């Protein structure tokens, strides 16, 4: 859900249900890395409610676009991390064949 003031798409608060610090804190990092972001922050309004509010204020682009870009960036990062990790694991295995797993076949995708 998005809350913006009418006519000003640059400042917005996005409300995500069923999310917590895990996503919000990573998103905050990703948003902060964008030079177009003036301000970003998040809050969890109530500890018993699974909800986070992410506030984004930008220089001129729409906050929604910036947030989407940030997510995209985060995703790319994750993909890179995963790729690197899988490669390193495989390298490690070939170097140290002693620790072979019977469940290795599960890690197919």
């Amino acid at each position, binding site marked *: 859900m998005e809350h913006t003031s009418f006519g000003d798409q640059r400042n917005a608060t996005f409300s995500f249900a069923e999310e917590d*610090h*895990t996503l919000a*804190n990573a998103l905050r990092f990703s948003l902060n890395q964008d030079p177009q972001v003036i301000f970003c922050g998040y809050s969890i309004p109530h*500890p018993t409610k699974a909800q986070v509010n992410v506030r984004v204020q930008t220089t001129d682009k729409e906050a929604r676009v910036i947030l989407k870009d940030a997510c995209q960036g985060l995703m790319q990062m994750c993909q890179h991390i995963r790729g690197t990790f899988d490669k390193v694991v495989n390298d490690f295995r070939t170097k140290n064949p002693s620790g072979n797993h019977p469940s290795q076949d599960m890690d197919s995708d």
Partner: protein
Amino acid sequence: MSAGKEGRALSILRDVFLANVRVIKNNFRPKCIYVAVMLRRMMEAILNKDAMDDKDYVGNKRLELSGQLISLLFEDLFKTMISEVQKQADNVLSKRSRSSQLDLSMLLVKDSITLGLERALSTGNWDVKRFRMHRKGMTQVLQRLSFIATLGHVTRILPQFEKSRKVSGPRALQPSQWGMLCPCDTPEGEACGLVKNLALMTHVTTDQEEGPLISLCYCLGVEDLELLSGEELHTPNSFLIIFNGLILGKHRRPQRFASTMRKLRRIGRIGEFVSVFVNEKQRCVYIASDGGRVCRPLVIADKGISRIKEHHMKGLLDGARTFDDFLREGLVEYLDVNEENNALIALYEQDATPETTHIEIEPFTILGVCAGLIPFPHHNQSPRNTYQCAMGKQAMGNIAYNQLLRMDTLLYLLVYPQRPLLTTRTIELVGYDKLGAGQNATVAVMSYSGYDIEDAIVMNKSSLDRGFGRCIVMKKHSAVNQKYENGTSDRILRPPRKDDRNKKGENPDWERMQILDNDGIAAPGEIIRPNDVYINKESPIMTKGSLKMVALKDSDYKPSRQTYKGAEGESCVVDRVTLCSDKNNNLSIKFMIRHTRRPEVGDKFSSRHGQKGVCGTIVQQEDFPFSERGICPDLIMNPHGFPSRMTVGKMIELLGGKAGVSCGRFHYGSAFGEPSGHADRVEAISETLVKHGFSYNGKDFLYSGITGCPLQAYIFMGPIYYQKLKHMVLDKMHARGSGPRVMLTRQPTEGRARNGGLRVGEMERDCLIAYGASMLIYERLMLSSDPFEVQVCRACGLLGYYNYKLKTGICSSCKNGDNISTMKLPYACKLLIQELQSMNIVPRLRLADS
């Protein structure tokens, strides 16, 4: 005429006045001397304030034990029985013609003594007319709330005077309490300082035979009182010998006499609890063998050298010797408070000087059982230890080894109780390490989230998932299969099942009776929900009147099922069912209903240092901080709990516990135990911590679980033994919209049990007045409470009534309805007016236009 009075006076002087000094063959001399000595003491006290006795001095006090009280009761009952038999026998014998021989045994009232004892024990009222004794509350039901509560209860000492008196003397800590009564364990509030507890090694003496001791005294050179004149009695070089408050005579070499007596005691020729006390100031030697004195064992030292040698201790450790052997061999002896004044007691063997006569066994024994659980109590502010003594009794855990077989009315158990990581010697001695009541929680002392203010603690949800603080609450419900006077009795029926139909083809109740076995009694292991029937009982309609010989028909019974009333959504289980007969020989069926609870927000927890707090919030483990080794605390405590409480012991417990888990050895924290090795020193603990890669001060480098960055401070973290207290929100939470009202005042009922309202009290009212919230007051105090419409007569100011036929209000004193106004007032006010009227006071209402 005067002879009768004189005789009575004489008998009073003989039997009542100073009854402890016996008059044998009308010899009043001992009594006279006793009075004279009393007077002498009194004068001395007037002249010299220092000679005054202290009535709060423990040596001047006696404890009354159950045996003494029961013997008094028995004496009374026995004598009453005898006099009763005597009266009856006289009655029978006075008759002229007797057909049979007199059989005294027939005249005995059967079990009058048994009944008397039973009555006294069950009511707790000790009414012994013979001794003008009327005491209430002499018996108590032993607390079985927790193991420590039981131990604390059996060591309790109740005072004789009323608690309401505002006196400070008896409440103050007496120096003579040392080693005998626990300095920490006393309740807060009105009984503070009056109710005491025994220390760990205290022994309360019982009466010992006096005769042999008296003759022994004479043998040892006591000059008989009979042979002495008043002048001789008080010669400067002699001491009076007083035995259990009786003047035996005098002795010229009191020290020698005392040491001979003590020697005899040590070799076991006289009882080990006989005390010999030489009072230099009063020039007396007191010998006491009476019951109710408190005494404690001490190691005897000869010229400052302990009699207990290495080989004795080895024997003790190997099990070849016991404490009683030590006592028998004269290595250890019991001293009472008075005799302690003749002893010079060294705290430790190395402190002994040539003058030392005794050495303390262990300093931590000055504390009682409850205070003995506290680790490092000597580092705490003293009230904290007192609070813990009260709180340890409320901790959930184990009760006894047979806890799962007991049928207590209320039983609180912990699912996974643990042994404290930081133990004390007392814990081992009383067996708390085997019947613990708490868990070792990893505590981080830091502030977190704002839900930890005012001593609230933040708990880790995953810890709770894994079983931390889980408890079992069992409640007993009982049913009686009553027998009635006309020979009928209740019956328990097979419950209707799903496919059963009664005559009308209905079967309304089978759902509520699913948990019943075929015998009509709930089966153990079944989940019981609110409104479930746990016993399908029926009672006969006719319970009085003539005895019908014909068998009762089904229609002669009405159902008297017992249903379980619990909170909705609470899933309880029938744990056990027992069948037994009660004292009226009725079948009694008892059900233990069990409920397992995990901690929730609002449950009360406490450490062993009087630091209680409720659970403020429960947080996911991933939000919790974690250390460099991946350790995540179980709970977070706010550091503001420390500065004002000054519970340094808790900090040392944390350090010691942390060192304990890292090196794999239980650490000790017995009171005053550092010099004797019963408590680990902070320096040594710190060294262990450093050896295992922790900081010496117990503070760890923690990462925030929320941001992932390190926290900006090192966090004091380690295990602390936490107790879950029996106060849980589930038993206390309460709210009401509308509900029952009290019949008399029509105001809402009071209390949670009656679904009562929440009272806006005087102080709340004051706040509202001060704020000027008049409509709120009006609403709370009248509309939401007891609004009532009354008819008021403007002419006479009295209350009238509303005539529904004429549809008008009528004043019953003016006999008309001309000046009636309708108004609202609280029903309680109307009640007051009417009650005053019934007392011939006429309150009149004068109405004005608003």
